[in-house]
């Protein structure tokens, strides 16, 4: 029986997201004993995840308060931190998973796993350089944080790090709920359905979550009000407001309810009751990632309105019935002011909800200017968030798909053909062809820099005075990792490995650097191979099935 510790020191959304991994671990090894270490403030969320045998907590708020508040001795913070971690240090785990991949978690992972090397993800060596458990931990730590393409969601990468497939939830589901609450929610929501139409089966309940973790991510109030008006006017939809039991959310719900003479149903629930509510609605409209993940785990379709700084491609949904409304990815990355969102209309929100419910087709949605729709699409190694409608950049989206194929070829050795199918079904052949030609040219430039660096290294080994020239060419090569093109993928992998060399003195590491340069050369070849395969796949496609302007969406 494997004993696994997942360290997840982030917030509710990440905690719920890690439930997919818990589910997969259990599906792969039902007898495994799973422990979770999280912050105490997230305990209520952790408790509803099925499959976790024990939750350990660090009281972050108390520790920070002990440290920052001058009335307390800093020793109290040390003491509090040590108390929980020493228990875990003395326990034996078969695997310690660094899930949150931040500095605190990485130091904690290094502390708990010191000397045993059973970690998954990243940890620090004694020289404070990064150690990767496998190549996908490098994808998580270096590629996803640097490239704009987001070839993988976090969820898919974590599954690759552990080398396990996305598990199917047990019949009980991944999230616990109280049977009494389930029945109460069902009864109350059915009553609402009947009030709308005697045939309650024809009525859909639309759950509307009105608050997110920051104001810049919230759906504007006027859009919510317009959407609710339209939902109320329909024959077959009923809106309910969903709020957490906090003063600020209550206030926001009341402000919206005032427009409807306080006739809207507003459901206030904590994490114990929320699953029961979500299970009994038909679709959720939300700007919030934590409730989105929860709905995802409960297999409730979601219309996620991703605004502000929300990393929607990394935190992607897995439910293929869900739709994400966002500015196109390439625009969000280039916009410096994340607090200003383009205007969004209630009618656009309602049409998207209707399409999710199957009341209208996707191509009947009038997408607001500057927005587009993304949809989770299953592929062999997870789920890809595909742009399907609206104002997206075909070449940027093609880059995202090709970058996933490049990483698969580089780190798995094979390419999932469904990526190419998705590529040619969503992007025009001419756009793909243009992109492939540009990317080949970029890879050619990278190859030149690589050869120049290799030459510099060989000359330096023969004559130390050539070192400055070598360093200069190495710096040029490393700078390629910041280019916004596919050649940055092998360059980033190279940079990450250079940075994790144990000595900071390059002269001490000539042999290792030489090995890494040859490895980079191989990775450039993998990228070129991927582009060639994509090209060949295109030749076999007689005609691009869908043009961007008339696209009706892939079969999902």
């Amino acid at each position: 029986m494997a004993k696994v510790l997942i360290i997840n020191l982030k917030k509710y959304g990440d905690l719920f997201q890690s439930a997919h991994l818990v589910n997969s671990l259990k599906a792969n090894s039902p007898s495994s004993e799973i422990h979770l270490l999280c912050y105490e403030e997230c305990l209520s969320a952790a408790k509803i995840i099925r499959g976790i045998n024990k939750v350990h907590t660090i009281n972050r708020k108390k520790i920070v308060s002990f440290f920052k508040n001058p009335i307390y001795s800093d020793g109290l913070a040390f003491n509090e931190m040590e108390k929980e971690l020493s228990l875990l240090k003395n326990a034996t785990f078969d695997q310690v998973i660094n899930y949150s991949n931040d500095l605190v978690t990485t130091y904690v992972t290094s502390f708990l796993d010191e000397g045993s090397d059973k970690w998954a993800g990243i940890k620090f060596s004694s020289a404070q350089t990064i150690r990767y458990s496998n190549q996908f931990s490098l994808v998580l730590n270096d590629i996803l944080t640097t490239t704009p393409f987001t070839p993988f969601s976090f969820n898919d990468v974590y599954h690759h790090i552990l080398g396990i497939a996305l598990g199917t939830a047990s019949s009980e589901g991944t999230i616990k709920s109280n049977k009494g609450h389930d029945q109460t929610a069902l009864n109350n929501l059915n009553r609402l359905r009947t009030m709308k139409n005697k045939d309650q089966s024809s009525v859909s309940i639309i759950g509307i979550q009105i608050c997110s973790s920051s104001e810049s991510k919230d759906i504007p109030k006027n859009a919510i009000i317009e959407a609710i008006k339209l939902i109320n006017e329909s024959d077959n939809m009923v809106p309910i407001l969903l709020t957490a039991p906090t003063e600020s959310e209550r206030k926001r719900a009341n402000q919206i309810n005032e427009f409807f003479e306080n006739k809207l149903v507003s459901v206030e629930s904590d994490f114990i009751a929320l699953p029961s509510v979500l299970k009994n609605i038909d679709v959720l409209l939300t700007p919030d990632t934590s409730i989105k993940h929860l709905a995802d785990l409960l297999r409730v379709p979601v219309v996620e309105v991703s605004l502000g700084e929300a990393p929607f491609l990394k935190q992607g949904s897995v439910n293929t019935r869900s739709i994400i409304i966002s500015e196109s990815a390439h625009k969000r990355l280039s916009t410096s002011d994340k607090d200003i969102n383009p205007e969004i209309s209630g009618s656009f929100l309602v049409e998207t909800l209707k399409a999710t419910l199957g009341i209208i087709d996707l191509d009947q949605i009038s997408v607001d200017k500057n927005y587009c729709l993304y949809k989770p699409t299953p592929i062999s190694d997870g789920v890809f968030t595909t742009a399907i409608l609206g104002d997206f950049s075909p070449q940027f989206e093609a880059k995202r798909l090709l970058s996933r194929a490049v990483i698969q070829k580089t780190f798995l050795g094979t390419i999932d053909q469904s990526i190419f199918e998705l590529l040619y079904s969503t992007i025009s052949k001419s756009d793909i062809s243009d992109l492939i030609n540009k990317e080949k040219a970029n890879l050619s430039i990278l190859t030149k820099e690589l050869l120049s660096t290799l030459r510099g290294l060989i000359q330096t080994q023969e004559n130390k005075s050539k070192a400055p020239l070598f360093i200069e060419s190495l710096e040029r090569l490393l700078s390629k990792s910041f280019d916004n093109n596919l050649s940055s993928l092998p360059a980033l992998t190279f940079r990450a490995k250079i940075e994790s060399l144990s000595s900071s003195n390059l002269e001490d590491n000539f042999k290792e650097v030489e090995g890494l340069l040859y490895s980079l050369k191989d990775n450039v070849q993998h990228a070129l191979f991927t582009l060639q395969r994509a090209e060949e796949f295109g030749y076999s496609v007689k005609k691009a099935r869908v043009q961007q302007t008339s696209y009706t969406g892939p079969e999902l």
Partner: protein
Amino acid sequence: MIVLTPKANCDFKDEEHVELFKKINPKLLTKDMAMNNSCEVEVKYSKTEQPIPVINGVHLHSIYNPEREAEGFISGNQKAIENSKSFLIFGLGFGYHISKLEKLIRSQKGDNFKIYVIEPNNLLVEKWRELKETSFSDNVVLFNYQDVKDFFKDLKLIQFMSDKPAVLIHNASFQLNESFYKQFMSFHYPTGVEDSSTFIENEDLRAYLLSEGTNETTEEFFLRIKNKSFIKGNDYLALALSEMVQGR
């Protein structure tokens, strides 16, 4: 009646207030504490025949009816009392206000509450114990030290304060020992590793903290560990803590 909110309580760093106080009477900060602790506690009896402590001529409860005065203490702190189950009271007096609060809270919220009382005057505490006019359940804990720092060495009190209790001030006690309570509210615990180590229960961690000398502050300690070329064991723990408190 003064009520500090729980938020105010967790930010006991009203330095400007103390500085102002020092300007008004520079000597008073040390003077009144010493004076009050050595002053005899005179006992008078109210019209309701209940004992009243009098220190330096200051009556700590109403000479007419201390029970009714305690009701005023409750009504003046009504909002804080409604919203909390943990209370830190500045001033024991002879406990009429505490007794009244305890009864009220128990009737409203059951047995799940805590009342911690800060009282710097040990002669007053002795007299209260001697007379036994009021008594409390185990939910009420009295802390009686003369040195402010000693309060902040008491782990039980620290744990309680970190949960952000509502602070209720017994006005007469506060006025009598104003400088003490201001020192209490603006207290800064020394940040040196030696002082810090006294709070660490784990012997290995305590030894680790002191292994490189005792003169550095915790900030300097963190910086030194961060810059080490080789780290191991508790270094990882220290760096995790360092990153956590910086909000990373």
